[in-house]
């Protein structure tokens, strides 16, 4: 293991997770999952993960529900949402309540994500 930040990215679209991994691996250690349940499993097995980025709309459990559950167990990790939807009241509230630190919109702005994660590290 190196000393890069460990990022978990959850998205139900494999293309998104694949691309994310390729692009961000040069800066972070990237792990990806396909939904919230998968994400919780990964977090259980990989305690070294410090950053969680999740898509919003996914089958079974949406991004925010997943993050709330995760945050409950691992309150010290940093959580973000990356979604194709415009910001909603629910997400705005979760930012105010510090459940997530920021909301990114698709198509992702690589520099924005990179810088935010480095800044908050």
């Amino acid at each position: 293991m190196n000393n890069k930040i460990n990022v978990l990215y959850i998205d139900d679209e494999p293309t998104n997770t694949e691309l994310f991994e390729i692009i961000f691996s040069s800066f972070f250690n990237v792990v990806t999952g396909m939904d919230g349940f998968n994400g919780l499993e990964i977090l259980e097995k990989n305690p070294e993960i410090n950053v969680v980025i999740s898509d919003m709309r996914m089958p079974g459990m949406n991004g925010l529900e997943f993050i709330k559950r995760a945050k409950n167990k691992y309150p010290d990790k940093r959580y973000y949402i990356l979604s194709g939807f415009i910001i909603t009241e629910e997400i705005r509230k979760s930012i105010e309540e510090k459940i997530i630190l920021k909301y990114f919109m698709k198509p992702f702005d690589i520099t924005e994500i990179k810088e935010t994660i480095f800044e908050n590290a």
Partner: protein
Amino acid sequence: MKLNANPQGIRELNILIKISQNIISTLQYEKVLQIISDGMAELFEIESAAIYTLEENNELILSATTPPLDPNMPESLRRALLENHPHVRNAIESKKPQHIPDTGKEKLSPSEQNIVDLRHLQSLLYFPFIQEEKSIGVLILGTCNKTRNFNKEEISFGQTIANQLSVAIQNTLLHADLKRHKENLEKLVHEKTLELDKTIDELKKTNKELISKNDIIFNQNAELKTALINLRNTQAQLFQAEKMASLGTLTAGVAHEINNPLNFIAGAYEGLNNYLNSKCIDDKNEFSVFLGSIEKGIKRISNTVMGLNYFSSENNSMDEKCQIHFVIENCLAIINSKINEKIEILKEFSPDELIVKGNISKLHQIFLNLLGNAIEAITEKGKIKITTERKNNWIITEIIDTGKGIPKNIIGNITDPFFTTKEAGQGTGLGLSITYNLVLEHNGKLEFESEITKGTTARVLLPTFEKHE
């Protein structure tokens, strides 16, 4: 008095003329009787005369005497019953003169005796006043303290004159009647006038009440009208809200569906870019054109989708910082497909950043509606100029089109809900009514100026975010 004697005849004539002149000069009944009493006494050279008039119920009234009665004499003392004065009654009933040569030798009733004693009457003459076969009264002439012999001629002369005078009496009576009628009539008119006045007053009052009732009805009517207008506005807003809500759901869904694949492209672009940069390639220029195009395409799609997203904002807060230039650009981007090459868009924006306090989604709706109308107003070639400026605490945006213009007679109606001049199915007529309400929600103003065939200016005044002191 000696009849036929000439000088005597002239004297009598003079007296008669005097009597008739006096009578003519007055029309008062009592006075006429007094004139007759005095005149006849003078004519017959007798000290005492009296006139009784006959009332109903066979009552007599002493109406005049010579020498005259005390005017204060109570009327009750002037009344007498016909039956107590048999000589008067004889004159009245027989309609012929009566003669008492000497009261000392005549049988008199007690009442008659009283009078005779009172005035020391000796010889008495009674002349009935006859009118239309009826006696209306009696003239009594009497000597005092001495008897006098009246011959037949004198008596019949007296009666002739009495007959003439009764015409005069009748005339005054008629006149008095007439006068009374007239007075009655006047009284009646007066009463009726009063009654009428009262009726008019009442009518006026009723009228007033009616007017106030009318006012109430009028007010209620006005209230109903405003209620109706409010109802229509609410209905329009609901309609629009529903429209916007479904539009919002749709755009949000569409945006999501576009953003995901766009994310693939953006990611792939990034990967490709990194990959190509790491390789040594001779032809970098060409590749950079390809990559640049992909990047530009992603940006533009992403911007349009972002613009759509402002419709679906669930946020209702009215104190967002809204950059007016950003909103307008966004609206132009959304509406771009409707703008064909015949329409030229000119922007004269203020160099300053203008920030409105309000709701960004609602501001989008305002400008989309106004721009939509401007575009629809231009049928051939035309221009739409958009200007912005800050004046005191206002941010003023004008959308000036060179379209068909709005006729003067309907310009007051264009913000009414459901008012449209567009063909069925082309316009709901809600655009401006919504816009107007949204501008009001921002505490702003919406104004229109238009000239037919020249074009229309829609002016929106919105409060600045920070007050300018």
